């Protein structure tokens, strides 16, 4: 297959692995545990591409019609 980054696709928002301290801020802000975040599978093509591991939290920067830009977090699960 040709070498093309899936993240360039117009349907796929930007995904990045969240650093530990940033994760703490997010969890404190919402007053939740990591396990209460929405999930994403480690077999997801995007997770494979950015190389996130099980237990990591990815930050997703969505383009939103209503807010312009929206942040979303997903916990990587098996």
């Amino acid at each position, binding site marked *: 297959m040709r070498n093309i980054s899936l993240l360039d696709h*117009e349907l*796929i928002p930007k995904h990045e692995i969240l650093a530990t301290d940033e994760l703490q801020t997010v969890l404190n802000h919402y007053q939740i545990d990591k396990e209460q975040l929405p999930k*994403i599978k480690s077999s997801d093509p*995007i997770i494979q591409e950015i190389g996130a591991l099980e237990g990591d939290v990815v930050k*997703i920067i*969505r383009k*939103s019609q*209503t807010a312009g830009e929206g942040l979303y977090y997903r916990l990587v699960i098996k």
Partner: protein
Amino acid sequence: MTLSEATINSMVDDLPLPQNMVNTLKEDAIKAGVTKKELEEIIQQVMDNYGYACVEPCEAVGVVSAQSIGEPGTQMTMRTFHYAGVAEINVTLGLPRLIEIVDARKTPSTPMMTVALEEGYSDSRDEARKLAWQIEATHIGHLGDVTTDLAQMQLVVDLHEKTLTQRDISVDGIAGIIRDKLNVLVKISEEVDYQIIIQPNQPSYRELLQLAKNIHNVTLKGIEGIKRVVIRKDSDEYTLYTEGSELNEVLKIDGVDVTRTYTNNIAEIYEVFGIEAARNALVKEAMDTLSEQGLNVDIRHIMLVADIMTCDGEVKQIGRHGISGEKASVFARAAFEVTVNHLLDAGIRGDVDELNGVTENIIIGQPIKLGTGDVHLVATKPVKGESV
């Protein structure tokens, strides 16, 4: 004195508002030319109104969404098929399509792809045509006439020379593919040009008739499952529309613009592009289906549905095998579908229902913990003789 652009930016940038509102506020403030005091007042008012417009914590947004989608849904046509303006390709629209989306079906009833082309292919009709032939599945029926010769116990295929050159397939190539796929004796006729003779392994009528049937199913060129490809010129570039959807295969073809290729099969998007793309596709498909019918549903309701469907990392349907079937409460599940099964299973397992949700409390006739049901009044009774 009006404020400079930099000061306005610094005052507005860090406000806890959505990006869109920050941008609009900035633009308008710069255009109107405001003083510091005015801007402060504007920001105060915007913040107040924004806070007022926000959904309160614990508000039943799901019910609001359900009603907001359900009511316009009653006005949708039951008519299944419609030519959606996209190059004579038939797609399911209206209520059946909406049901398909929320049911998260593995394959939609009319899968369709929009294949964008890379530069160098998108501006030339010939290159686009060539790609189209690479994608569209070619069967023997497209290329020639198959006749069954009962006397000689063989199939005679007369190929059309013109079609072969057009689709860039050779006689040898066809013979080879048929030989490999059906494992039969294939000869290229020596007397007649562009003729192939196929014989079954055993000279029996059954084998021959079976062969005559099977030969039409062999894909000689292109991607199996793509029935038709239509080329259309949108603004100034050629785009391919396909009937049938094989995202993974199409993306492997050189000249296809991977970043703009799209299918209406959400399960395929999930597999190839991941959960976030599937969520975006859900929103897009549902919004397109509704707006095609002239219904205006706020996108936030659709986004909520899409978020719920994708929150576990896979696309789950709204229904017995998805969201509603996974609720923690026995009563809530039993209220939806297959009531007896749920109650029976819960009884056998000895499940406990904590009665935390809305459905459970309605079933047993208690106030729900929402709206007025969520408020408790506490009053101290004045003791006799004391003045209040």
